[in-house]
């Protein structure tokens, strides 16, 4: 095979990888919408050391066990809290009736390493979320905005999530400005697990007391993972 063909073949593979990574992230949000958390966990690297999940200032959770605590356990916690409230307020309500979460991945920036073994992606995601509010005694609607900063790794020919960093920007009641709601700090749900270590590159959610930062850093082209930073 000519060197030109080899070069083109490698370029094609990198382009395919960009598409696969976007599909992987998008698929995660569709799975999250219906609470398919075990399937989401299956999208994390199963054999590669150093899996992490970091959520805002809640800390870093390490390994697949950390991913299970955050992705599966917290997800189920929120859904069960919703179901519990609904069963009490609306006896006979169907399982998960009234719960809704749509995350819309926008502004993608994806870089695949020159060696094809890792990749990085950054997304800005407006979201609409609806869950039972104990204060209101019924489902309440929220506007949410999150950034996703993710490192990916190849395992047996498939892209998997390696470092998964969620940065909440704001969460506000549907009728309330996020300027107003930022005056009350966001609280984690009851039962939120303890992290394995503190947060790394923390980005404050919206606040009238903080200025915007160029964080998380968008990925730049790179050759091997040693040449870049970790999310």
């Amino acid at each position, binding site marked *: 095979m000519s060197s030109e063909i080899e070069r083109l073949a490698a370029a094609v593979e990198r382009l395919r990888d960009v*598409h696969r990574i976007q599909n992987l992230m998008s698929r995660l949000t*569709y799975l999250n919408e219906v609470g398919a958390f075990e399937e989401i966990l299956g999208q994390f690297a199963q054999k590669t050391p150093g899996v992490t999940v970091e959520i805002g200032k809640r800390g870093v959770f390490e390994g697949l066990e950390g991913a299970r605590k955050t992705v599966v356990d917290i997800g189920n916690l929120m859904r069960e809290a919703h179901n519990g409230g609904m069963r009490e307020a609306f006896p006979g309500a169907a399982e998960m*009736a*009234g719960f*809704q979460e749509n995350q819309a991945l926008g502004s993608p920036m994806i870089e695949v390493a020159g060696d094809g073994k890792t990749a990085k992606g950054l997304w800005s995601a407006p979201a609409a979320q609806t869950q039972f509010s104990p204060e209101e005694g019924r489902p309440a609607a929220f506007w949410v905005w999150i950034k996703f900063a993710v490192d990916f790794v190849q395992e047996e020919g498939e892209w998997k999530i390696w470092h998964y960093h969620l940065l909440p920007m704001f969460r506000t009641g549907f009728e309330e400005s996020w300027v107003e709601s930022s005056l009350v700090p966001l609280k984690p749900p009851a039962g939120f697990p303890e992290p394995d270590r503190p947060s790394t590159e923390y980005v404050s959610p919206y606040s009238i007391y903080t200025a915007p930062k160029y964080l998380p850093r968008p990925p730049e082209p790179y050759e091997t993972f040693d040449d870049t930073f970790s999310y």
Partner: protein
Amino acid sequence: MTSDKTLAEEVRRLKDVHRIQNLMGKYEYLHVAGWHKESVDLFAQHTPETLLEIADIGVYAGIDSIRRFYILANKFAEGDDRLGHLHLHTLTTPVIEVAGDGETAQGVWVSPGVETSPAQALWAWVKYGVDFVKEDGDWKFWHFHIYRIFMTPPGRSWTEGNARPPRSLPDEIKPDRPNTYRWIYSFDTATENVPAPPEPYETWDESRAYVK
């Protein structure tokens, strides 16, 4: 070893993903501009069973029926009557799969948006599930399905009920058949994995269609 032919196929398929994303984007920009006649040109013109399904309304079968809908349903807002109208449907969260044989493709998107007239502003989130077909070398919409998530005026939660669609349409805009799927947020119904994101596939079969 990668042959020239295999490489060419891979490049073609990757270009197809890009063209499909651009085709959907073009549809949205035409929609924003109110260029509804031009929207019809993006649909398959001579492939059998070109279908448009719109949540709460129904299914339009065939290109002539689709043209009837786009042009007549928007007749209320022509010329100066368009002042104050704004329909924005942002395409996000794409999952696009092109068939191995390169003849069809599928895609889903989540779309946060607004629908605005001088009389009313609405937050309108929808999902798209679209089947594409190649016609004369160009990608076209084959089965185009718009699914509601919620539709609500600012200041009112979608948990308090969605803005209602028109109770009945004039005969000239009525669909050819009822919806195949109906869902909009309400607190007594659960979310379903619809439209399900497409999986990689080799050739088309009708069971995967986003409008059946």
